[in-house]
């Protein structure tokens, strides 16, 4: 009888143990399945965010291309009107005033027209190069920047110093080149329109896994902290937004009367 009692109490102990451990062994996979569900949901959200970012990047890239084209067309329009147009009008007027009876003066005027025509051809060639804006980027960012600098220097309003540091990576990233090129165009626009600078210093540096672009001008500068919201303009916020889209950072330093320094870091390629 006693043995039966011991046996039954042992069985009761085992029963309790089995119930508890079975519950633990049931809860463990239940939690695992629940965790997989939660993780999977997060994965879905992450994929959706990635897709959205890709879409934003692509649309920004298209907008950048459009803006570069628009900027080029504006420059060409202004140049045709202000420069080549003036040269050709002058040539036409000079030719119109040629008196064939006065051979010496006529010769002088024809020579002057020849000079004007040659200058116009030179200007047209420069315009042609600018028109190849997108192909310029295909040649590489340093070359594209050089062409824009040539154009700025032509106006003889300011002296531009351009230095390239570090080695160009073996692989290009045309999308990032395009965005950086557009940022630089925006920076130049700001300098020309607002800063009244006569010296611009550009440094393009290829650092480890990235590009650093630094633009310093000796213009009027401005107080960033106390700048009214409506005067911040689309320029700076656009530069910042574009730098962030390619995973980069944008820094600006400026004080009234002390010029402006802009630095952009972008992971590359």
């Amino acid at each position, binding site marked *: 009888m006693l043995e039966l009692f011991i046996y039954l109490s042992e069985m009761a102990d085992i029963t309790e143990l089995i119930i508890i451990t079975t519950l633990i062994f049931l809860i463990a*996979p239940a939690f695992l*399945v629940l965790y997989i569900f939660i993780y999977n949901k997060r994965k879905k959200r992450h994929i959706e965010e990635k897709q959205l970012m890709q879409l934003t990047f692509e649309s920004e890239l298209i907008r950048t291309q459009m803006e570069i084209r628009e900027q080029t067309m504006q420059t060409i329009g202004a140049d045709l009107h202000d420069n080549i147009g003036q040269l050709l009008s002058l040539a036409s007027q000079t030719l119109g005033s040629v008196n064939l009876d006065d051979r010496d003066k006529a010769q002088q005027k024809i020579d002057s027209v020849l000079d004007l025509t040659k200058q116009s051809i030179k200007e047209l060639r420069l315009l042609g190069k600018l028109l190849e804006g997108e192909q310029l980027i295909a040649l590489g960012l340093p070359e594209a920047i050089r062409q824009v600098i040539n154009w700025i220097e032509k106006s003889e309003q300011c002296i531009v110093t351009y230095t390239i540091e570090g080695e160009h990576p073996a692989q290009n990233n045309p999308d990032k080149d395009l965005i950086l090129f557009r940022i630089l165009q925006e920076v130049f626009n700001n300098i020309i329109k607002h800063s009244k600078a006569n010296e611009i210093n550009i440094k393009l540096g290829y650092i480890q896994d990235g590009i650093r672009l630094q633009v310093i001008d000796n213009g009027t500068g401005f107080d960033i902290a106390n700048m009214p919201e409506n005067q911040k303009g689309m320029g700076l916020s656009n530069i910042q937004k574009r730098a962030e889209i390619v995973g980069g950072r944008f820094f600006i330093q400026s004080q009234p009367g002390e010029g402006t320094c802009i630095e952009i870091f972008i992971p590359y390629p």
Partner: protein
Amino acid sequence: MLQYFTLNTSVEIICFLIAVICLHSDEKVEWKFFIVFLFITCMTEMAGVHFKKLYLADRIHNHPNIWLYNILLLFQICFFCMIFEMLLSKYFNIKPVIFGMGMLLLATHNYELYEHGIFAYNELTNTIMLVFIVLGSLYYFYLLLKGENYVELKYAYDFWWVAGILFFYFGTTTCNIFFKSLSPEKMKSIKHLTYYIYNAFNIILYGCWSYSFICRKWLTSQSLS
């Protein structure tokens, strides 16, 4: 006849019928094999009920139905190896590993039969198979989590099949550990603890599998249309 329809066998038969409806025209042979496997399982379970009754009526002259489950174990080894090979081969070449595991299980099965005959349960084989199944299921989940693609888990038939088998084999670990202490030979009443535990886990297992078959049927018919 009704005596053969216990809660356990009823759940299995329902799952078998769902498998027949959903998988009879499946293009993958492995999934069609579910019908065969579930048929064998149902037959074994019903025969098991019959032999259990004989044993309870005369414990001296009859053996418990354990020998039937030893035979079923052979089918389970082959079938689970085939399914895990199908599930994991999507990610990498798992064939050699599955083949090795299958061989080890068959060798253990034969050794146990040689050791104690067919009337004692091949506990070691079952335990090793349980470990392999749990490892295989966890590894499948790991690969699922690691994968970059998003999977709609609500309708992922693979996932529900693995979830079912993991619940069952992981959940019944305790019963397997205490198998000897809780065997019918030692228990006065047949309605012992393991009966309820196995019933509960069987409902979870065949519930998950049935849902998995429905998902498979739904998804394959959708992709065809």
